[in-house]
């Protein structure tokens, strides 16, 4: 009961905030929440599951495109479109993860790099179905029970997606499965010796987090009411990885800090470096790995210990 109230409180707080923000800041705010959602999922895959993947953002794209295509090209009802979109993410994730996790090493990283690259090609070449290089636009969220959700009210939907993702990940993290993931990350041989099916654990983590990214993508589809190929390129796949590393991999709070920081940084950096903030990110990441492998959350812990 107390726990439910706490979740509800956080929801009201996060969803209430955009009503105080203007249109522009509401837009920045909800995009930030989507990045936080993505970073949380990716942190579970990379920080807790120990797998490097470059397709997290591609699955975000699969979710975004699939819901638009199912709704407006195939004219399916919203719930069915959501289910089919998730199913598509799961199928693609399984197809990539099952072969790539059979061997020790970075095969999944390379396979997902190839997948992410191919996804953009498919979007560009997809003709009328994907809208080609121009993408799809001029659609709007179907009315739900006769209500048209827009503006700050739609931000509440995104807050719901974020909290749902966090809830699922926290539950998993604190379960047998979360500990199995950490064991597989730290020492696969020992994990196998304890009776954990290493390959299956990896496949499940990858598929689950990819599906969560897909759901976040579905929420994204109605933020700008347009989806187009350039957004889903490799740059953003690297950005998610960087958010988690800079924030502190393996920690949910770290993922949140990293996502917020790296999302907001370009707004402050652009007067100084123009569009070249990615270079700054690269340097930040290299610095973090060399000097502070625990990321910003590690620094926070250190300060807490020092001053308590």
């Amino acid at each position, binding site marked *: 009961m107390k726990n439910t109230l706490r979740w509800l409180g956080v929801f009201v707080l996060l969803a209430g905030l955009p009503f105080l923000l203007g249109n522009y800041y509401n837009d920045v705010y909800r995009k930030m929440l989507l990045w936080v959602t993505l970073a949380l999922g990716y942190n579970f895959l990379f920080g807790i599951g120990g797998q*490097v993947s470059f397709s997290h953002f591609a699955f975000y794209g699969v979710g975004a495109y699939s819901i638009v295509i199912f709704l407006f090209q195939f004219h399916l009802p919203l719930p069915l479109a959501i289910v089919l979109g998730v199913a598509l993410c799961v199928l693609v994730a399984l197809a*990539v993860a099952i072969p790539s996790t059979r061997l020790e090493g*970075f095969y999944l990283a*390379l396979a997902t*790099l190839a*997948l992410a690259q*191919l996804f953009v090609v498919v979007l560009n070449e997809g003709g009328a179905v994907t809208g080609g290089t121009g993408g799809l636009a001029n659609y709007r969220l179907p009315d739900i029970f006769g209500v048209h959700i827009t503006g700050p009210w739609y931000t509440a939907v995104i807050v719901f997606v974020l909290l749902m993702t966090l809830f699922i990940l926290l539950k998993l993290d604190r379960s047998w499965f979360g500990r199995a993931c950490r064991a597989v990350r730290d020492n696969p041989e020992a994990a196998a010796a304890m009776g954990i099916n290493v390959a299956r654990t990896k496949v499940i983590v990858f598929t689950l987090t990819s599906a969560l990214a897909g759901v976040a993508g579905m929420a994204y589809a109605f933020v700008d009411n347009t989806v187009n190929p350039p957004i889903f390129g490799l740059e953003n796949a690297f950005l998610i990885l960087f958010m988690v590393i800079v924030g502190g991999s393996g920690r949910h709070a770290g993922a949140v800090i990293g996502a917020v920081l790296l999302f907001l940084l370009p707004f402050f950096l652009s007067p100084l470096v123009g569009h*070249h903030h990615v*270079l700054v990110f690269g*340097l930040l990441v290299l610095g973090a790995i060399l000097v502070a492998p625990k990321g910003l959350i590690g620094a926070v812990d250190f300060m807490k210990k020092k001053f308590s």
Partner: protein
Amino acid sequence: MQDFLELAVSATASGCIYGLIALAYLLMIRPTGIINFAVGEWAMVSAFGGYVFLTKYEFPYPLGMAVVIAFMLLVGWVTERVAVRPLVEKGAPLLAPVLALLGVLVITREIISVSFPPDPLPVPFPFGFGRLEFGLVAGSYQSFFIIAVTVLVFVGAWFFFEKTLWGRSFEAVSLNRKAAALMGINLSRVTSLSFAGGAAMAGLGGLLVAPNVSAHYQMGVPLAIQGFTALVIGGVGRVEGALLGGLLLAFAEQFTTRYAPIASGYTQGVPLLLLMLFLLVRPTGLLRSK
């Protein structure tokens, strides 16, 4: 038939490029276990080096090529010093240098995109643009040049690994790091050399492919994917495997483009399909290590 043979020559040339990139991966992966995703970016840097020295300053080709390759050796050496060695010495898990190299990848790419105009930049052909015919087999000068250089490099690499003391010490390190160190092999020197050599191989690939595709800051990632796929097809255990895998991949790609009724962009899916297929059916690659 003629069409087929012409295609075969150009596929062989592309396969050689993939083979060189695969060899770059292999040089670093065997002694260290580190997979360096930045090899594609290294090929890209070298292509831009070709633009600077051969197009802009008009160095004679052999000299320009030597300067670019020397520069790549330096790039590899510095990268190892900055992004790999501190982590290995700290005893960080293998993932740490791999991630650090991803940082290097992004930094490299951004530095190039900041320093050069965004359009593809031309890099000259060493022998100009022309056609060479041996009976039915015909292709561009560049195709034959690529094939010749790659054959030389692979013969050299094979000789290095099989016949020289240095090459054997690479083998020893890849088999068992601790034992190799106890036998008096200088691990850090082997690591330095493997990164310098890897950068040079990737750079050679980039310089050779540059006249055909022009230097562009986004050319790295596809090469990194194709090179790795070639490595998986051929098998990490043997040097020849890199070339064999590269050739197989290039033939699969070019024949799909030519004969399959799909948009040419989709051929970028061929490496992914082959990668999945080989990981499922023959994860050790075609050639087993001895």
